[in-house]
């Protein structure tokens, strides 16, 4: 059953080559000495050096980071509330509209979200800058957070909350002391998702950013439109490295916790 046939080996190899080769090439050529990105002229880290001196990029990176931290934190709070309302809220006026507004942004083309928010900000006379980007990012990423959290809440054993209430907790205490610690992994992955969505976003940021605040994707996009450049390769490599380290660490931690839990359960079973 579990032996891989040649067909499966081939499709996996080709598939993962397709997924990873482009990024690999990009990384390799970020260490290219030549300005010409497609001709190898020896190893060099000079593009990384130049990148570090490029004030515009550094500023944009700083703005992006600020926006991502703020919007993902806000989105996590709002998204968790929304998830709780959806799963545990019971019936209330306009529940259908509410769940519609949670799910719609997931499938909404970014150009439409961006355009509509921009028109709103202009309509109410809000100056475009960091604040408007944060508002925009919070709005669409809170929906992703609430989907992640509500899927965890759906499998949550409700009797745990009831036990807490039975033992004298108020509803809020029950949430803080029992529900939240248990759904914490989902909340954290929701935050991470919101954070990367914000880091990545080009289209919505382009609509909602003003001259006072430019994010990194906007900078990259305008640079890239002119063609491939080794500096962008270097920047991409750094971003890929950060994500790879983050994701691999997270999955290793999860796996270690799982293994430890299994070991403990086994030990307990033997002791019992």
């Amino acid at each position, binding site marked *: 059953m579990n032996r891989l046939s040649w067909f499966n080996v081939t*499709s996996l190899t080709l598939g993962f080559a397709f997924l*990873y080769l482009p*990024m690999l090439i990009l990384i390799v050529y970020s260490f290219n000495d030549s300005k010409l990105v497609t001709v190898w002229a020896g190893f060099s880290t000079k593009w990384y050096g130049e990148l570090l001196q490029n004030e515009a990029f550094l500023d944009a990176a700083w703005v992006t980071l600020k926006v991502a931290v703020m919007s993902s934190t806000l989105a996590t709070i709002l998204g968790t509330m929304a998830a709780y309302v959806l799963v545990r809220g019971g019936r209330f006026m306009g529940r259908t509209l509410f769940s519609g507004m949670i799910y719609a942004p997931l499938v909404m083309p970014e150009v439409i979200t961006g355009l509509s928010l921009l028109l709103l900000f202009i309509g109410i006379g809000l100056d475009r800058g960091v604040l408007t980007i944060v508002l925009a990012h919070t709005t669409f990423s809170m929906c992703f957070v609430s989907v992640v959290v509500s899927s965890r809440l759906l499998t949550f054993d409700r009797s745990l909350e009831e036990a807490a209430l039975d033992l004298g907790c108020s509803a*809020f205490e029950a949430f803080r002391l029992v529900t939240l610690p248990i759904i914490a992994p989902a909340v954290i992955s929701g935050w991470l998702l919101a954070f990367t969505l914000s880091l990545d976003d080009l289209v919505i940021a382009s609509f909602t950013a003003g001259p006072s605040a430019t994010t990194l994707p906007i900078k990259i996009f305008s640079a890239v439109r002119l063609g491939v450049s080794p500096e*962008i390769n270097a920047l991409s490599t750094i971003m890929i490295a950060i994500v790879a380290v*983050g994701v691999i660490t997270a999955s290793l931690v999860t796996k270690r916790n799982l293994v430890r839990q299994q070991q403990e359960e086994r030990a307990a079973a033997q002791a019992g």
Partner: protein
Amino acid sequence: MQRFVLIAVPYVWLLALFLVPFVIVFKISLSDIALAIPPYTPTLKDGFATFLAGLDFENFVFLTSDDLYWKAYLSSLQIAVLSTAFTLCVAYPIAYGMARAPEEWRPTLMMLVILPFWTSFLIRVYAWMGILSQEGFLNQFLLWSGLINDPLTILNTNAAVYIGIVYTYLPFMILPIYAALDRLDGSLIEAAEDLGCSRFQAFWLVTIPLSKNGIIAGCFLVFIPALGEFVIPSLLGGSQTLMIGKVLWEEFFNNRDWPVASAVAVILLLILIIPIVLFQRNQQKQAEEEL
């Protein structure tokens, strides 16, 4: 009281920053372009009666009369449909291979599929620019291998857009199909073979129908965002690549025609409602089946 706050905060937020903006888009799509700030008329400043009287469907009429928009919608649909089909063809063997891989490999393979999803979309599209260009790696490789004598023009064509969509949305297709195949009980395939199926018949009569839900979910997950895609056509596509996301962007930023851009957005939304509703139904049906 607590419950009220809990419901009200996210509710009001979404109303203000999601629903109201759409109403505004809809309103502006019915307005006329003007050399003013904001660049359209009427506004509520003109008084309510004039405001209502000033709204019309002129922009939508304009969209139907100028065949640029027709072509853009049609070619968006075509590109989205075809690239969804291509993505399915690429994703299915990978998902199948993953589901048949030894148990202990599967978490790693899963992570390898998800990892690109966490890396910047823009960077992943950008990576292909260096590969597909005239002097890019693909042409270098093909010339070196002797398969071609003159470099192919791939970048700035629709072909590059297809490649870009397949590449960036591949994980969305692999994951639901893998989930469906992973749940598939191996003894069903054996039962089919036991009852006289060849390997291929067993695949066609059992594996494919039982991964149907995964295939449908994956197709929607690729088709819906691909339809409104902006980054891929503007970086990989050429000037002749018409996609509605790009048209909207240009209408808004280059022509500063906000009413027409809004009308384009409203129509895009109308087109998207059909697949979104179908997708929602499919998900619901699937959830019910699992109960």
